[in-house]
């Protein structure tokens, strides 16, 4: 009895106010070419799910993430380069959608910063090795 009630309850489980609809085919199906699928997966891990709180579209169950995954796979199988697809997403949602900051403007500081900090740290530490007079 409990099991039947459980099954009914499961079937009636609310879909969290995001409507119902078919999941795009390529959202959850891998591309036949493993190299293409690997490229697509790498890109998906670098794109933010815009309906979620910080997951990538590869890790999210949200409907929009599914749509975005399908778009990525579709464009990869059509021969588009990952960078072009990333730009396509940025054209729609701005830089927020990409987990990898652009290398222009303020982003350049971000990418240059590690080497800069390393050099500064070595410079600061040189005082430790100076001989005592």
């Amino acid at each position, binding site marked *: 009895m409990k099991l039947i009630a459980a099954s009914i309850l499961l079937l009636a489980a609310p879909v969290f106010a995001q409507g119902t609809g078919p999941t795009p085919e390529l959202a959850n199906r891998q591309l036949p070419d493993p190299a293409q699928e690997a490229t697509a997966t790498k890109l998906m891990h670098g794109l933010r799910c815009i309906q979620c709180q910080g997951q990538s579209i590869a890790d999210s169950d949200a409907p929009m993430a599914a749509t975005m995954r399908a778009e990525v796979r579709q464009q990869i199988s059509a021969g588009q380069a990952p960078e072009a697809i990333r730009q396509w997403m940025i054209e729609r949602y701005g830089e927020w959608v990409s987990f990898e*900051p652009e290398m222009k403007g303020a982003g350049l500081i971000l990418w240059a910063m*590690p080497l800069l900090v390393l050099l500064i740290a070595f410079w600061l530490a040189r005082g*430790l090795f100076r001989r005592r007079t």
Partner: protein
Amino acid sequence: MMAEAGLAALWLAAAMALLQFAGGLTLMRGGAGQLTPLIKPAAIVQGALCIFSFFALMYLFTITDLSVLLVASNSHIDKPMIFKLAGTWGNHEGSMLLWVTILSVSGAAIALIEKRIDTRTLQVTLAVQAFIALGFFAFLLFSSNPFERLLPAPAQGAGLNPLLQDIGLAFHPPTLYFGYVGLSVAFSFAVAAMLTRQIGPAFARAMRPWVLGAWIFLTLGITAGSYWAYYELGWGGWWFWDPVENASLMPWLAATALLHSVSVLATRNALRAWTVMLALVAFAMSMAGTFLVRSGILTSVHAFAVDPKRGSFILALMLIYTSLAFVIFALRIGTVKQGEPFQLLSREGGIVANNIFLSVILAVVLIGTLYPLAAEAMGDKISVGPPYFNKTTAPIALLLMLALLLGPMLRWRRDDIKRHKYWLVGFFAIILWSGVALWKYAPNIGIFPMLGLAFALALAVAAWVPLKGRKLLRTPLPVFGMVIAHFGLAVSVFGMASESGFSKETLTALAPGESAKVAGWQVKLVDVNPVVGDNWVAIEGEMRARTGGKSFVLRPQSRQFFQPEMQTSEAALLTRWNGQLYAVIAQPDENGDGRWQVRLWWKPFVSFIWLGGVLVALGGLIALLGRMFRRAKKPAKNRWSEA
């Protein structure tokens, strides 16, 4: 009754802290006064009172006293007992009470046990510790009272977030808090040493066990958190560079650097200013991390109960503590004489290199985490995530591993590279050989996994070199600790590189009876059944996985919780010596053709990541025990610890 008693104990404890702080002030101003002899006893009483208060709260959770607001909002009469207990700290007020309890108990322990430093420094240390505690007492008593009543009491209770109803995650926060509070003790020692001008080996030896203890807890806490995210969140990832994760990593990086630096100060009387600064930075990072996760100013997948008001309080505390400490730093460190000199190629030099690399990684993680906030101020909405952090921290971590190959072998003060040339050639040979093998047989795995594997293999050998030529039974435990910790690092990096380079994924829809393949495994979905638990229902897939003649059963679930309503994915893991098979089943999608969405991974050597983490913590524990027992007998004479 119990709630009121707990609250009263908390007030009294705050009064004790105030007493210690006042005593410390009079001590600094003019020397011992009437309050000074009360400092130590007050610290002990404060610890005892806080323990009582915390256990009072735990008792209220155990009996599910719903007339207490905190219990009513975070617990439920149907919750399993272990999670009722864990519910004590699974919320903001309770976790703050845990924090202040550990702070107070640490103060009591220092008062009771510490005999290595002079009384004046000890008393100032307690006063600083009490000052820190006062801030948190104020927070608790004036804005986050855990013992507030809710009348009339509700019948059931709001329940606990289902994601937290898990053993691993129930104990993850306390583990991290022991770490953060341990760093506060180091902070207190450092500030006291600056004030009483006692920055030397004695202070370092007093501080070291606290740093080591805190660091062990942080290592375990991060390792446990990573493993929890891996098996609970259902995506097979184990680190997302999420702001909350970074908030726990930054104190660990500072603590690791501090740990090495304090050892140098203890044995060689060098790196005085750097040790003090690292102690201040490590605690600052703990507070910054605590602030970041509760304030809500950064988007994170770890949805804590965020509240900007709470964030402001913690921010105010953090700014007060760190600013005061760094003002004292700027004023006093200039007068500290430089310690014993050493050359670039020496053990001290190696540790300096180690600290530089760790600090750079810390800076990169800090700036990368805060960058979106800065960009937003300028009108740009950007994201900084795994692609950035992986590409920027991996090279520095690899450089660090290279330094680790040579560092522990170097002599103190001055060494000659020619003495180590055979070992260096050997390590280089390992790296070259594994690099070429990988490049030949697995050219597509990427440069970082390749180098990571090669360096990890070299480090796995290099870690044991300090034991060569020693009488093992006469070797001090701390040396074993170092060896095991460094070896653990190699194991962990091996796991990380292996997982990121060689994982295989299969994503498909299966009907019962159908099979899928992943990396040498054949996985058949035998059946899908509904399953019922304490406060959830689920669909469970029964899968049969076959490889090389052996067959195993996996049962992943997709769970629906009731109070509060939430859906989680319970992955099924099959652990073998050479990797894990990871299976996830999802609710059927609306295409309705009787198929279930199934995700399968084969992750080679992934468990090495956390095994390595545990080894690192174990190394620390062995070192800690070794030092504690060494105080009882004379230290063995050997060339490694000679001054």
